[in-house]
């Protein structure tokens, strides 16, 4: 697979949220506003890229039997760096994401990509994989969060989109709203894929 294809893989074919359904904890929990979604996506991308670089460099050094603890230590290190840095330089965002930043450690997307990709591929390929997955994760979070923020408060990124006439659906920014929006978005995307496949078959 070429480098560009590795990158594009995470954007759609193996999209972490909509196709692999990985990392559901932050996906459901922090997508209350588009800004939170974007911040969580960028933080996760940083951790993903840095840990895949380190793991791919160390892939021939780390013995197979201790690979999982080694991966976790590396991932936890980068997560802690992100946590402190955000608290120091972006305190408002750090406060609204609160516990979910430290919880990036247990995001199975990150351990999953390190185990499945970085531990078996060169550093350059791992960086492309991490960027693809990270960008994919980020756009997924932003879309989901924007839908919830729009229906729940009438705003997106803090800008009013729907005026006074719109009866805001408060439930969308509460936990049930996360499940409802994710479910509806997944159903729509799956239907789109089915239609596309039918069209391709029809052409043949």
């Amino acid at each position: 697979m070429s480098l560009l294809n590795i990158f594009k893989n995470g954007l759609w074919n193996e999209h972490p949220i909509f196709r692999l359904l990985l990392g559901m904890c932050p996906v459901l929990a922090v997508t209350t506003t588009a800004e939170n979604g974007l911040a969580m996506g960028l933080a996760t991308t940083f951790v993903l890229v840095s840990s895949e670089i380190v793991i791919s460099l160390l892939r021939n050094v780390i013995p197979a039997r201790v690979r999982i603890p080694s991966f976790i230590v590396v991932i936890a290190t980068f997560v802690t760096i992100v946590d402190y840095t955000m608290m120091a330089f972006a305190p408002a965002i750090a406060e609204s994401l609160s516990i979910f930043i430290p919880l990036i450690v247990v995001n199975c997307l990150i351990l999953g990509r390190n185990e499945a990709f970085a531990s078996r591929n060169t550093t350059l390929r791992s960086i492309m994989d991490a960027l693809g997955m990270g960008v994919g994760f980020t756009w997924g979070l932003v879309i989901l969060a924007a839908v919830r923020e729009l229906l729940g408060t009438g705003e997106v990124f803090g800008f009013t989109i729907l005026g006074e006439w719109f009866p805001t659906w408060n439930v969308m920014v509460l936990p049930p709203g996360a499940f409802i929006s994710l479910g509806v978005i997944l159903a729509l995307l799956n239907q789109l894929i089915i239609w596309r496949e039918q069209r391709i078959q029809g052409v043949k």
Partner: protein
Amino acid sequence: MKDNIKMVLVLTSIALMSALVLTGVYEFTAPIIEGHAQEAIARSISEVLGQIEDMEVLEIEGKEVYKAYRNGELVAAVITEASGYGGAIQVMVGMNLEEEKILHVNVLEHRETPGIGTVIEEENFTKRFAGLAFKDSYRQDVDIISGATVSTRAVITAVERAVEFIQKHLGDEIQLENRGDL
């Protein structure tokens, strides 16, 4: 055997490297983070007490009490907490000790339900405390907000605790000062 030693060595070196990097990051960011916390407290003090002079920070029973003068009158602020719907709610209460009245209440930290319990932050709720006397019964005099009973009641409890705390520990000080005036 050789494999086992390699396992130990590799994992230990990774952990050591991680500790080193994190120590560096912590040393660098800790003072900045501490600065933000101090700023937040200072901002809140000026919100609950207004224009003040000669502020003193007292340590009483592990709590910080901010004592100062406003227009020559003794005022004080303290942070207390009570459990709300989603965990502890932290409230800073500013009081005028000479008139024995609440000046202003500020909700600092909470994890209440967005859109429901978050009304406790709003001026519309916090202003209900302003001007109440220490001897008033806040449970009766402050209306709770329907739909957010637990959250609003928790703030009331926290305010009660703050008033009790200040009366218990600073009550003598006011009497002493008043006697000095006579």
